């Protein structure tokens, strides 16, 4: 059997990659997907921990998180669409109406 630590390391790498890409990327949709990657990393960690402790809690929590991510996607894409309609761009450096 694959040891739990492998999964945790993988999930940590995924999480850091997601967070890193969130700052580097300049496209709203990509940034949004980075957040989804980070949530998936958390899901992976939850499942790995649940498996190693053979408790069901972790797996149920994952279902909650997936639900939340889906709802977030609905709201988020609607907001991005709204911004696109007004500005005709989804580059994050163009979101600069307010400063200071």
């Amino acid at each position, binding site marked *: 059997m694959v040891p739990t630590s492998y999964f945790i390391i993988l999930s940590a790498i995924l999480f850091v990659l997601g967070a890193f890409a969130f700052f580097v990327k300049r496209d*709203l949709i990509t940034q949004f997907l980075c957040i989804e990657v980070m949530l998936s990393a958390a899901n992976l960690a*939850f499942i790995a921990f649940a498996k190693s402790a053979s408790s069901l809690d972790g797996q149920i929590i994952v279902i909650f998180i997936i639900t*939340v991510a889906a709802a*977030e996607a609905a709201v988020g894409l609607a*907001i991005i669409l709204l911004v696109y309609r007004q500005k005709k761009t989804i580059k994050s450096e163009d979101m600069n109406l*307010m400063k200071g």
Partner: protein
Amino acid sequence: MNSLNAMFPLLTLIVGALLVLILEVSIKRENKTYLAFISIIFLMICGFFCVQSWGKDFSYFNNHLYLDNFALFFSIVLIITTILVTLISMKYLSLQNTNVGEYYALLLLALSGMLIMVSSSDLIVIFLGLEVLSMSSYTLAGLKRDDQKSSEAALKYFLLGSFASAFLVYGLALLYGVSNSTSIAVIIDHFKTESSLSFMAFAGLGLVIVGFGFKIAVVPFHMWTPDVYQGAPTPITAFFSIGPKAVGFAVLVRLLYPFWHVAYDSEVIFSLLWIISALTMIIGNLIALRQTNIKRMLAYSSIAHAGYLMVAILSQDTSSLMFYFVVYLFMNIGAFAAVIALGKKDKEYLELDDYAGIGFKYPWIGATFAVFLFSLAGFPPTGGFLAKFYVFSAAVREGLVSLVIIGVLASLVSVYYYLRIIVYMYMREPTHEVDINLENPALFLVLFLCLYGVLQLGIFPGNILLIIKQAVSSIAFL
């Protein structure tokens, strides 16, 4: 006591929100204000249930929902906030051409998320409550659909908010891995049995604190605050400056107070929060100095206030934290109500220059606004003075003298930008014509209530302190 009563406040809010959504379809655009009255009725019923369960410790869902007095106190504070926000929104929405019924439903749903957060001590349930709150908040921020700034605010709030949620969830995953549970009490118990905290436990706790740091807008997690506060509809800004902050701090109280008693290793987290608190007070107040937009200035001022509240968290004095919130509620909503009062059809006056001469042209609005600003700056005899006094004196008792010195100096700086508005209102000649719509009884009611609250809390705070004492003595760390 396990009882369905614990569900009543939440159920009331959700039924109210759904009813408003259903009615919104069949009501004409110019009559949408009726929905505000419906939602106020439901808020009052919800508040009634909260008051009724005071001291009875109702719980449900295997203690995942636990209405101790601490939770009820914050619930009532948040319900009052929502009622006041609903009242100041009524005229504003039709003036600003955003008269949509979803507005009130979303406010109720956001409130229900906050009630879930304050009345649970399981981190996953708290996370779900937080998401209910956040999802409604993102939408509320962008509700002025024709206004580019509002959409941009919604976008920034959404991106950084869900980024912060991802941190929170990953932190929860690590804490779950360490202790096999997401209940705060079990996690803390687990910390007590270990001789030192593992790296994973530290990382988990750190990420959770970062996640909540975004929500309560402390430096260095405050970048979204000014933009979102400036772009969102003004009543919603008032709501954001109180609601999410109050629940964030309530959760931090539940999470960190037992943690301070885990003797070893907690110093690292403590000194980290010390630095955050000092930075928040300094940076919040300094950047506020050079703002000319009132909403943006109040945003930085609310960041600075989060710093003062952080001092209360560090000195483990829950009662001063709760008193601060009650005062903060009245003075901040009051200030935003005064800002909203200066508006007419499709126009808001938000720049500092617009306030020149307001004090003489509209003496009542000017005078009440001045009182709220004095209170925010912390002058006696207003509530703001007592609130700051309690927080700082509790911190001195706990030996956080250097933090208190930073705090007092920072609030001296804040006097400059609060008084600058008053100087503009009373000592500058108006540069251009400012005429406002005065037919707004609900708004003036709110101004009066907030004025009463600020003065009552500043002069006779006895009753509320008694209630806070009852609430603090019953915090359940389940």
